[in-house]
């Protein structure tokens, strides 16, 4: 770890220790942090125990010395000798050390055989070995000068403390080692986890870059952050592939479906150029060709519109509004058309329905559904538009909440199950629809609009006829406090 750069090859080959690898850096930082905090913590413990104990010993000796000075000043060498003897006799802890010598360095009192040679100065702390009957111990001592050349040595056997100190220091050392190991291990583990995630992401994305759009990130099902990333990425991929499918469909469509009106226009023009006998015929042919070209334009426009809606950019224009007047406007537009076709038009609408979305776009979606219902119904049928709020419906994302359910039912020719599944594909038109006008983009647009609103478009049989249903989650009450007032009284 000291020279990580030595292992870092400049090539993108994944070396074992690459400092450039984010995961390794992460692990290193993690380990360093771990070790630093452990050392800091253990140092506190060290000072708290060993430091405190040593300090206590020193304090005890200092206090003792003061007491003995007093004795000396009262009773001189004899008094001091007696007290020292007394102290030694009652030293239950078996750690007191005293030595009183006279000016000739001769023993006067105490339990040390002789004046230790290394104690040369007074009033300093010394730690020195002492020979006890069972072993050699360490002692902390301090020498004091007394009048008449007497000298007093007071000490404590600190072998107990030394032991404790050894235990603590050993513990600290071991703890350091363990912590280091833990840090390295943890760092390594994190690095592995990290690499695992990153690798599976990069594997998947690489596969996708190489064209395999069906690849997805594995989801463990443990509901953790990794799964969250995986799910988010998968959703993103889902969307990308849907958009790509869209693009593919559009290009296919341009290749195939736009050809039809263009070919027709071209044929009409060429035919007129070659065979028209008079100006009127020529004009008629040209007008027809212009009509066909207009058709091309409107197809292009519809495709662009769908693409634009699918890109989701229009979501920024969402507002809160009351859906009912908006629906009534569309109904009013189509009611006349329905009647014109000999159809009865029935509406089941609530008084108010707060809705969050794009008003004009939603109207267009409903208009397209009504347009289909009228177009694919023989006379004397009934077309029903109903809207209701399902209060605790299960939404597509699993949560429960309010949903708008809007349906357009007709009693027309209906569709087969297989056709229903394909109905919202671009340019799809069922076999029976061939001789009605249209380009097969109506439901695609509806689908795009509904998806933009996070909803679903469903087709079902009405026996006879077709029910198209739009289900869109509604905003929760608490998030739209003012909707009734802002939209109803204008």
């Amino acid at each position, binding site marked *: 770890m000291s020279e990580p750069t030595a292992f870092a090859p400049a090539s993108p080959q994944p070396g074992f220790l690459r400092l450039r690898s984010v995961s390794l850096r992460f692990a290193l930082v993690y380990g360093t942090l771990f070790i630093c905090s452990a050392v800091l913590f253990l140092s506190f413990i060290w000072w708290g125990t060993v430091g405190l104990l040593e300090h206590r010993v020193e304090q005890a000796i200092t206090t003792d010395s003061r007491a003995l000075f007093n004795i000396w000043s009262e009773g001189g060498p004899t008094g001091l000798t007696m007290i020292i003897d007394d102290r030694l006799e009652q030293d239950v802890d*078996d750690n007191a050390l005293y030595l009183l010598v006279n000016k000739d360095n001769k023993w006067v009192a105490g*339990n040390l*055989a002789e004046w230790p*040679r290394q104690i040369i100065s007074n009033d300093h702390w010394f730690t020195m070995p*002492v*020979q*006890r009957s*069972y072993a050699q111990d360490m002692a902390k001592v301090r020498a004091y000068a007394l009048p008449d050349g007497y000298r007093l040595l007071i000490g404590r*056997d600190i072998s107990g403390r030394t032991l404790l100190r050894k235990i603590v220091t050993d513990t600290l050392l071991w703890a350091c080692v363990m912590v280091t190991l833990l840090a390295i291990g943890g760092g390594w583990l994190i690095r592995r986890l990290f690499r695992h995630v990153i690798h599976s992401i990069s594997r998947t994305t690489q596969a996708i870059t190489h064209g395999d759009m069906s690849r997805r990130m594995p989801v463990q099902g443990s509901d953790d952050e990794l799964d969250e990333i995986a799910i988010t990425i998968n959703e993103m991929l889902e969307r990308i592939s849907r958009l790509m499918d869209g693009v593919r469909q559009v290009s296919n469509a341009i290749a195939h479906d736009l050809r039809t009106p263009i070919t027709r226009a071209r044929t009409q023009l060429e035919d007129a150029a070659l065979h028209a006998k008079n100006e009127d015929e020529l004009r008629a042919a040209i007008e027809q060709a212009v009509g066909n070209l207009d058709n091309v334009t409107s197809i292009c426009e519809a495709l662009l519109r769908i693409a634009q809606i699918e890109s989701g950019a229009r979501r920024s224009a969402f507002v809160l509004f009351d859906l009912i007047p908006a629906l009534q406007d569309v109904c009013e537009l189509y009611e006349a058309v329905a009647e014109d076709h000999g159809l009865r038009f029935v509406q089941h609408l609530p008084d108010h329905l707060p809705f969050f979305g794009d008003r004009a776009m939603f109207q267009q979606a409903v208009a397209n559904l009504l347009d289909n219902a009228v177009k694919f119904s023989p006379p004397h049928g009934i077309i029903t538009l109903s809207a209701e709020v399902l209060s605790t419906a299960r939404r597509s994302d699993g949560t429960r909440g309010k949903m708008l359910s809007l349906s357009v039912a007709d009693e027309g020719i209906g569709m087969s199950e297989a056709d229903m599944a394909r109905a919202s594909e671009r340019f799809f038109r069922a076999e029976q629809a061939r001789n009605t006008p249209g380009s097969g983009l109506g439901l695609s647009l509806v689908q795009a609009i509904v998806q933009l609103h996070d909803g679903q478009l469903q087709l079902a049989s009405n026996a006879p006829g077709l029910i198209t249903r739009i289900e869109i989650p509604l905003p929760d009450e608490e998030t739209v406090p003012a909707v009734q007032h802002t939209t109803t009284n204008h």
Partner: protein
Amino acid sequence: MRTVPSPKPVVVTSDSVAFCLQLSRVIESYNASALSPTVSRLREEGTDLCRQGLVRPGLIRLRRAIVSLKRTTP
């Protein structure tokens, strides 16, 4: 604080059988009849241990005996 690496440690004279006996005598010097059962038991155990060569535990018992003596006799 200075640690001096001196190889010759000073002998602690109180770690000896002699000291044991000295302590035992100190106890005796108190009024023998007034010795409480605890003190005399401690003293006996102490001297026994000393005699068996276990100076340290012996000393500890003897010292305890002295401490309790000091506490009881004014």
